[in-house]
């Protein structure tokens, strides 16, 4: 129910890719999001999936959703997106 302005992009870092060959990162990422938002909404707030060299995703989250994800055993860390600059 949170309006878009209340959501901020966060990186949900899940660490190394599992060795399991049938592992589907996308469904894993959506599955995790579906634990904190309604299933039909998860795809809308997922902005990026990391799936080739390590696992994780970026999603527009409220503070509450961020906390819930951060407390999940399989989530390594959740940190806010920020801007870097050319040097």
């Amino acid at each position, binding site marked *: 129910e949170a309006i878009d302005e209340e959501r901020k992009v966060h990186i949900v*870092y899940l660490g190394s890719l599992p060795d399991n060959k049938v592992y589907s990162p996308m469904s894993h990422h959506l599955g995790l999001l579906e634990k904190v938002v309604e299933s039909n909404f998860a795809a809308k707030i997922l902005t990026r999936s990391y799936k080739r060299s390590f696992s994780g995703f970026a999603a527009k989250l409220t503070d509450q959703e961020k906390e819930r994800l951060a407390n999940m055993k399989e989530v390594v860390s959740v*940190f806010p997106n920020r801007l*870097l600059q050319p*040097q």
Partner: protein
Amino acid sequence: TTRSWDFVGLNGKTKRNRSVESDTIIGVIDTGIWPESESFKDHGFGPPPKKWKGACEGGKNFTCNKKLIGARFYGSLYDSARDDEGHGTHTASTAAGNTVNDVSFYGLAQGTARGGVPSARIAAYKVCGIEGCPTDAILAAFDDAIADGVDIITISLGSPDVALLQNDPIAIGAFHAMTKGILTSNSAGNSGPTASKVASVAPWILTAAASSSDRRIIDKVILGNGKTLVGASVNTFRLNGTSFPLIYGKDASRQCSEIAAASCQDGCLESGLVKGKVVLCDLAYGVDEAYRSGAVGSILKVDWDDDSQILPFPATTFSDKKFNVIKSYYKNSTKDAQVNLQRSEVERDAAAPLVASFSSRGPNSILPEIIKPDISAPGITILAAFSPTASITESSDDTRHVNYNILSGTSMACPHVAGAAAYVKTFHPDWSPAAIKSSLMTTASPMNAAQTSYNAAGEFAYGSGHINPVQAIDPGLVYEAFKQDYINLLCLVLNQTDVRLISGDNSTCSTGSDKGSLQDHNYPSLAAVVAPNKSFSVKFHRTVKNVGPANSTYNAKILANSTQVDIKVEPEVLSFKSLNEEKTFTLTAVGKGLSNEQHSHVTALLVWSDGIHSVRSPIVIHNN
């Protein structure tokens, strides 16, 4: 670049392993790339290396070739990997651009442009838009670059704020790259010369500080009294040798406060008062107001004059002392002050390499036992490829466009370090990222350590010294480190949960007496933190691997300027019987105590020498 690679010893005649170089891929995470640049043409290149698993997904109107073999972009606000800013084109060409004859910036810095490894391939990952470079995009670029099969990653991006390793996408991405054998070079940041601002702090990253090369771009101002002053800016405009009246900003404004007018703040200068004159401004950003108000030129004050910035119209910059000479001349010749602004010229800078004033300094605020930056490379007035549609200065009134531009920053040093690392890798394709890093650090040339106003930080400013890629292919010994070594280091400063935040796996931290100490991480430079005003005795344990002749004997030598510290190495002689044989040694530093002044430190140099190789490691004991 037209001079910097020659300055570090990689010239057109340097020994190269061309077929391996052609199979080397540099991943550039930046503002994109200008694919049509001469520096990225594919004449003479064969098909992409077999190991390449990437793609050309550069988007609209973007075509790759056999030199620029891959491109991706990660923003929703742009539709291609094309570089609209010029920064990524500049860094990519610095690392691996083709050899291109007779390039210059309006005749300045003329020469043959060349990257560090001109035969290498480039994969560009565009992560920055006008708003900046979001970390979610940076992490996505690492995710792809590692899987695509690049050999070296160069990322000239950063923040003025230091992030914890577990929240730092460059540290996390580079960690995964390291585990796959890929070394990441990252810019130290441009927050110098204030201490402890270096933003790239992870030990598995090779962090680049910016230094001067022996080509300096200057511009002269001749005052009406005949005195000539040498300024530091890139002024490509000719005023035909004519002198013009000089006016101080505060005398050219009636509606602004004296301070605002003296700085030439926006809207302060009156056209009628500055027309046909050169305006003196107390701040560098006054150049735009001087330009817009119709002045002929401008003289501006800057904090540091070791870097020459491009200015959008006839102008030059001076640091405090020289600027005050001009101000005094103006005051003393009230109505008749005249100045003649000369076009920029190039001169040889015998003081190089000197670390840049803007280059971010240590100590490392996250891991003070790891000296950061690691190494220095040219980062002042570097001429390299540029996007022809991008603005060459920040002034909206500057309509000039070029194919090769002069930029300064640790961004420019970073691809020099990446290019040097790639050069080493072409001779040693199987070396680990740590071994390549070690080879560059222990063979680095000495910097000019003259105690200028901004150069007091020593190793905290320039790390192990100045890149010397030719020497780095034959370092003799290397300090090796692998994933588990970095995990062990992190376990000393973070709890197991936080270590897993970085490694992303189920790494465990040992407990009890076998944890080791922060001084024991097998880093190619040595640092320790001690309490102020207390005597200290610090032990460092290190292992070196013989990568030179099988039978070799190395002797340890300590070079120290200070009597504050007594350093002993045990054993003092290391004898090797085979290639890749490893030997350990212990270095003990004993001192009576450092003062409690901020960042008080003593330095020394450990040199292992077999008569041919000289394996150098700086030692810094500091109070943090």
